[in-house]
């Protein structure tokens, strides 16, 4: 299936939240080495729950992982002990969050917040850790003089930095220990459009240099189209389609992906109404039977209401979960 060695393999992952919310349903996802994998979904689709499960930070209770495997470099993360998992966090799998102003400790200097993880994971001395932090600032463009230089950022509190600078610092923190997998959860959603572009370019550039894999979570198809190599679409806790970027945007197979692409306003289609998906995104407490999309699908047939379609491969590396994939044109 496709090319490239698999770094992270999620199999049959099933997560419920007390009482009775089915957030992630038998999810399957492969992330290959050195790829930017875009995970697209609407609010409540389970994309953040999935990434939180990967990094082992789901609060339990209320969350419960009832089945599945998360294989990372040959080990099932779900079987690891707390301490083993802690050593992987930040070191092997790191995370970048949506709102840097909330996700930094407000009363601790930015430099210290990055330094402490270097000392912890690598046992680095304070001095060499600080050197490494400055190096990271240079990598993320924070060393430039128009930001006052890396030393100034080192000793700044988060609120003293602008939104764009904070997100750069957050990315510096994410790549601090050169992880093999970086999870970026809506890293540009809170930013202005012009800043968003700069941060996307930065992430792209860093991936090129450091060759890590990135799981890029977003609700914005345009953003994912810009940055990802592969794209998976998640709906109601299940991957409905996954393919290389070129394939999925040119030749989407699942009706949800198709309609989602058509519902984006495009100035070139002025004057014609947008294609819409009727109804609303189902919440995790009442997921429709069979194919979860059947209540909104224009191509719905009898079987869709009863049977959950499996994620099947149709062309090389292009998988989709629809009973009529390839038939609905």
């Amino acid at each position, binding site marked *: 299936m496709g090319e490239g060695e698999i770094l992270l393999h999620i199999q049959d992952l099933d997560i419920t939240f007390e009482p009775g919310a089915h957030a992630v349903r038998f999810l399957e996802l492969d992330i290959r080495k050195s790829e930017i994998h875009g995970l697209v979904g609407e609010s409540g689709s389970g994309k953040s729950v999935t990434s939180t499960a990967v990094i082992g*930070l789901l609060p339990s209770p209320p969350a419960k992982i009832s089945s599945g495997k998360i294989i990372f470099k040959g080990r099932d993360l779900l079987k690891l002990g707390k301490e083993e998992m*802690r050593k992987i966090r*930040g070191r092997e799998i790191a995370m970048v969050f949506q709102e840097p102003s*909330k996700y*930094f*400790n*407000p*009363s601790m200097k930015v430099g210290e917040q990055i330094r402490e*993880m270097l000392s912890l994971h690598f046992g680095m001395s304070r001095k060499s850790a600080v050197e490494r932090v400055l190096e990271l600032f240079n990598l993320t463009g924070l060393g430039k003089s128009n930001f006052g230089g890396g030393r100034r950022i080192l000793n700044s509190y988060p609120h003293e930095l602008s939104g764009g600078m904070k997100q750069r610092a957050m990315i510096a923190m994410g790549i601090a220990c050169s992880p093999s997998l970086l999870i970026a959860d809506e890293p540009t959603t809170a930013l202005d459009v012009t800043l968003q572009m700069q941060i996307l370019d930065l992430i792209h550039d860093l991936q090129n240099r450091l060759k890590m894999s990135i799981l890029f979570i977003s609700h914005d198809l345009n953003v994912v189209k810009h940055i990802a190599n592969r794209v998976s679409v998640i709906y109601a806790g299940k991957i409905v389609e996954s393919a290389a970027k070129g394939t999925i945007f040119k030749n989407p197979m699942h009706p949800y992906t198709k309609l989602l692409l058509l519902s984006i306003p495009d100035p070139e289609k002025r004057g014609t109404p947008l294609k819409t998906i009727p109804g609303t995104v189902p919440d995790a407490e009442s997921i429709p039977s069979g194919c979860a999309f059947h209540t909104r699908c224009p191509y719905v047939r009898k079987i869709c209401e009863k049977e959950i379609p499996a994620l099947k491969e149709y062309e090389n590396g292009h998988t989709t979960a629809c009973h009529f994939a390839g038939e609905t044109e």
Partner: protein
Amino acid sequence: MPLIIFIIKRFFRLILTVLLVSTIIFFVIRVIPGDPAAVIAGIDATQADVAAIRAQLGTDKPISVQYIHWLRSVALFDFGNSMITGEPVTKQILKRFPITLTLATLGILMGMLIAIPLGVISAVKRWSPVDYFGMLLSQIGMAVPSFWLGIILLLLFAVKIHIFPLFGSGGIKYYILPSLSLGLARAAVILRLTRASMVEELSKEYIITARAKGLTERLVKYKHALKNALIPVITVSGIQFGYMLGGAIIIEQVFSLPGLGRLFLTGIYQRDFTLIQGGVVFIAFVFSLINFLVDILYSVLNPKIRVG
């Protein structure tokens, strides 16, 4: 804003507060009915006697002159002599202040020592036996008046078992029971605040970041969350401390400690206007000073506050 400018700004605010309080107390005393001179002179005094006392007090001069005179005495920390005993007010206050200071310091320390660790543990181990114990303790602490607690403590540890003296002042042992009864009431408040504050911090997003970085739970809780959680606790404790410095009147009464509270209480009974006047300004000054120190501490803990 750099810390030093912040400190200077807050210091001016302190001066302004004291000035404002002095002005208010000056006018209030002159507005309330009754001529202090007549009160001092007594019912049988002649007009001449009253006039003489007035001259001695300076209340015969125009109000503007009196006001300037008053401000000067505030600035020099010299509040004149007591109308009753004739002793300098400043001297009386300073003589009593160490007692109240000791009482309040020990009180707040005991309160914080009991409340903060218990509050933190309660928050970290929510709904555990420790948490229930803490909540029970804070309920009791809030419900029980401190004078009653004081009496009980006296009965237990001074009458039944002679560990501590029954009353009076002297060495540290005279302060243990009164500061404990004072401190326990504060502990109740501080404990609840610490717990709530710690719970809130632990639910914030930066805690997720700290965990995602692979920090140990100890670092997450005690390096990241605790410092932020203590910010409001420090502020409230500081203000509580300020209140106690104004004199814990009832506790001083129960334990017969000759502190500031009792001095002012006597002053009020005896209509000793100069003493009351000086006392109010002194309390205002101490209170503002504590606030000032708390503000500085707060801004060191929470760099964000310096912006505004």
